[in-house]
């Protein structure tokens, strides 16, 4: 753990914190702006934790608490997997595992106009981006990136979707590539889309590959990096023996 | 403490000697009413408005042992998801306390009285002055001493006036019991138990209009007319008392 100057929160970085812990004392920090991420709040001069998890710090001044839940609280710029539950004249209503349904405006597609409104059946799985997440309003989604390009956003056809905790989905997206995906990717070819809201979609040529990948990911829910690797390799060995 | 689970069966001890019902035989005209009133004499009426602070309007009425509180709330949004209506809704509810009746009751809502109260007041309220909204009239009978419904109705119209709900007129209610050959006005609980017939009139005295009339038991035309006369007369007297109560409250608030 690198020690930092000025009565700083260094002692808690990368430690597990629980709600109520005061982790940063602003009065002892002079002339420094800090940025707070999820799970932290400011209470006068003290920064306190409101969700249990691991306190993270990223240079120069970002703090957040890494948490893992079954519910998703929308946050701007998150990429997530949503399911169409209804379509209205102006919006699709999308379930994103959050407290409220999200709106996906029918024009929020690359080159979207009134004339080429896409048709989505109820139940369609979409890879989308959160563009608005204000308390008291339904969150708003978009199927384009910030420059208006479709990028990879849009409907996901075929494949298999399963749910996991938000912590696991964040781990899958982390860089460098997480051990389980790394191990699987060396032996199998498959497509994967991970939503930060705890939804993962997998597609491959053979159904057995999809099943292996999905199980490997679900099993890694509470495993450490090394354990993940071992677990994935064991699974892969099994199919190689069988085939 | 309070027995949990299987509640033991309890009973109210009754007097040793069965008090036989007072028999008002047809020939006997000279009996006295239990409270010493004349046949055509009402109990002294006491009204007070503003009994409940948290309500928009309220009134308390006491006729002998009959004690009633009525609160009026609104006009406020309709809780029942109703269709659009260009007139207001009136919602009435009458309930009894568990100790209102001589035998400990359940203190439940009285659906019959609730609907009667509604019918008696409906015609007097200018419902078109508060479209889309509801006025709630809730009555609680603290103690039942006979003629409960007419007292509730009179008290409710006073509470409505206290709440500033627009009305054509106050509504006064009076009942008459028929016991044998005699007509007695404003019966008490004991008299009601043995009555052969009853007649309840609620009316708007200054307009001389009957808003509600309920008769049960067998009546000849002559007796019916006599009873109606009696009631209407009492209603107009009652309305005077109600009016003076409102005036008093108004002048007190001005001071």
């Amino acid at each position, binding site marked *: 753990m690198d020690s930092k100057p000025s009565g700083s929160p260094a002692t808690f970085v990368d430690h597990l914190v*629980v*709600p109520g*812990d005061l982790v940063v004392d602003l009065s002892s920090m002079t002339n420094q702006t800090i940025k707070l991420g999820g799970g932290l709040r400011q209470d006068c001069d003290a920064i306190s934790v409101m*969700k249990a998890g691991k306190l993270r710090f990223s240079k120069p001044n970002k703090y957040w608490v890494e948490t893992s839940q079954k*519910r998703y609280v929308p946050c701007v710029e998150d990429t997530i997997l949503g399911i169409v539950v209804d379509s209205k004249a102006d919006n699709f209503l999308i379930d994103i595992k959050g*407290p409220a349904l999200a709106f996906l405006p029918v024009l929020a597609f690359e080159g979207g106009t009134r004339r080429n409104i896409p048709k989505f059946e109820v139940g369609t799985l979409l890879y989308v981006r959160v563009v608005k997440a204000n*308390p008291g309003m339904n969150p708003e989604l978009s199927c384009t990136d910030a420059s208006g390009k479709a990028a990879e956003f849009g409907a996901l056809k075929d494949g298999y979707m399963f749910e996991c905790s938000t912590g696991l989905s964040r781990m899958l997206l982390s860089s460098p590539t997480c051990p389980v995906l790394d191990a699987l990717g060396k032996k199998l070819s498959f497509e994967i889309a991970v939503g930060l809201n705890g939804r993962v979609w997998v597609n491959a040529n053979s159904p057995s590959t999809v099943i292996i990948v999905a199980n490997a990911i679900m099993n890694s829910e509470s495993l450490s990096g090394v354990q993940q690797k071992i677990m994935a390799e064991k699974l892969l060995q099994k199919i190689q023996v069988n085939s | 403490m309070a027995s949990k689970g299987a509640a033991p069966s309890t009973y109210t001890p009754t007097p040793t000697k069965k008090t036989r019902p007072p028999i008002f035989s047809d020939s006997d005209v000279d009996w006295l009413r239990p409270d010493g009133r004349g046949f055509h004499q009402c109990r002294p009426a006491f009204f007070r408005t503003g009994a409940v602070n948290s309500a928009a309007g309220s009134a308390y009425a006491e006729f002998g042992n009959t004690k009633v509180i009525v609160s009026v709330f609104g006009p406020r949004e309709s809780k029942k998801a109703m269709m659009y209506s260009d007139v207001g809704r009136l919602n009435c509810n009458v309930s009894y306390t568990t100790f209102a009746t001589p035998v400990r009751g359940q203190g439940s809502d009285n659906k019959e009285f609730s609907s009667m109260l509604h019918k008696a007041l409906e015609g007097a309220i200018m419902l078109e002055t508060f479209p889309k909204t509801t006025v709630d009239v809730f009555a609680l009978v603290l103690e039942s001493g006979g003629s409960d419904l007419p007292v509730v109705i009179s008290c409710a119209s006073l509470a409505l006036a206290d709440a500033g709900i627009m009305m054509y007129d106050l509504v006064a209610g009076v009942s008459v019991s028929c016991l044998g050959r005699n007509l007695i006005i404003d019966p008490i609980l004991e008299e009601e138990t043995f009555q052969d017939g009853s007649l309840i009139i609620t009316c708007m005295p200054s307009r001389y209009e009957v808003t509600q009339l309920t008769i049960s038991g067998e009546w000849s035309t002559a007796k019916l007319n006599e009873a109606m006369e009696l009631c209407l007369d009492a209603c107009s007297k009652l309305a005077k008392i109600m009016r003076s109560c409102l005036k008093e409250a108004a002048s007190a608030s001005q001071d």
Partner: protein
Amino acid sequence: MEIDRDHGRSPSQLRPLSCSRNVLHRAHGSASWSQGETKVLAAVYGPKAGTKKNENPEKACIEVIWKPKTGQIGKLEREYEMILKRTLQSICILTLNPNTTTSIIVQVVNDDGALLVCAINAACAALVDAGIPMKHLAVAICCCLAESGYVILDPTKLEELKMRGFAYLVFPNSVLSVLPEGSSLVEGEPMENGIITSVTHGVMSVEEYLKCLERGRAASAKLSDFLRRSLQSQLSNDSSKAA
């Protein structure tokens, strides 16, 4: 005067505690908490959209449903629901998810004394598991007064029958802080743990109540240590893989 307790417990010794999180698959957060033979299971669902009638839509609404071991709920359970609801409302940050409802279902598994405090502890752990934003954690403790005026903590059902007074106390967890010792003054008062919730049964003198308070406060430190440790041990499983 000493009081003999089962298994040679000392008066302020708590029964063995155990807590496990994420015990239910479908709930968004869950925890089971046991103190000796008393065991309570709590499940959290939400936040869901919308608040109930008569609740402030500008805040999150908390709903508590008490499920007794057998039979239907009566006045006692309604009181427990109300106490739990008020207690949890005061530790959660309600302004963050306005117009949502979070339901907490408390299932009694076994009652061997100190049921209410066990339920509060279970509910608190379940809220952490669900990632509901919280100001701080709460720990609950049951103090009893024997006829002789002696205070014992965390009674069993058998001991409860012999007691003349009970105080159920809820404290915030001890604050782990970066602030230097002594500087943390709350409006002129030294930092001592205030009471979140207090419910008493039976008669006692005011001095006896204050004694209970003091003993409860001392024990609450032990409890919050345990809560922190149990939350951390389970968190570390999740998070270490990312490391």
